[in-house]
């Protein structure tokens, strides 16, 4: 099967709507198809990978740890927009340290989260072949 560049654009906060969770479910299934997969976190989407999520008070399942498993599925390009963070008073330190292990470099741990500028994000979005928006 042909290889295409798939992009998952996440622009909504988790829990208020189901989009973040069901977006993640697509990404996990898509991993089996051996396509080039990238995730973009723009606008409120950056809250999806905020660290310290605690859903005890709302009775909903905390699915944030699932992002840590993405590396095992060779999904390791999580682009986060710098301006989106800044507009919300956040920095890279507010995000989960999501890592992947590079098979080619003796399983060295590398960060999956890549902070990019808005202009870089525009270029990354433009490179894609199939874009799903959540």
């Amino acid at each position, binding site marked *: 099967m042909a290889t295409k560049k798939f992009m998952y*654009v996440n*622009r909504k906060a988790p829990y208020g709507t189901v989009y973040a969770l069901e977006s993640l479910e697509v990404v996990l299934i898509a991993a089996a198809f051996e396509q080039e997969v990238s995730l973009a976190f723009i*606008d409120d989407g950056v809250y999806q990978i905020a660290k310290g999520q605690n859903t005890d008070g709302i009775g909903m399942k905390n699915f944030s740890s699932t992002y840590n498993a993405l590396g095992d599925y060779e999904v390791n390009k999580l682009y986060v927009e710098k301006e989106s963070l800044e507009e919300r008073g956040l920095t890279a330190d507010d995000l989960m340290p999501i890592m992947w292990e590079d098979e080619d470099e003796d399983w060295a741990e590398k960060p999956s989260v890549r902070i990019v500028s*808005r202009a870089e994000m*525009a270029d990354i979005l*433009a490179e*894609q072949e*199939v*874009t799903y*928006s959540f």
Partner: protein
Amino acid sequence: MSMLHIVNKSPFERNAMDSCLKHAREGDAILMIEDAAVGAVDGSTIAGDIKAALADKTVYVLGGDLAARGMSEDRIIDGIKVVDYAGFVDLTVENEKTQSWV
């Protein structure tokens, strides 16, 4: 390799249009559908942003959505093109990729 950006949110309620305008690149096309159609009307607080986008991008509005919201075509910003669903399909063919700003 141009991208068709599809926006369906009123720019007065949500930031989808704003975010789209900040990420669309030169030569891209932007199509306003559903509630986003109201963004095509001239004289609004966001008309300036749309006019700026028209400098290096093409902007379209789905005619049926504009009419449904009581806005006649003579009120839209100069340079915005009105399309029907067939024109919408043509835009997805002319541009190699589409991104929906839901």
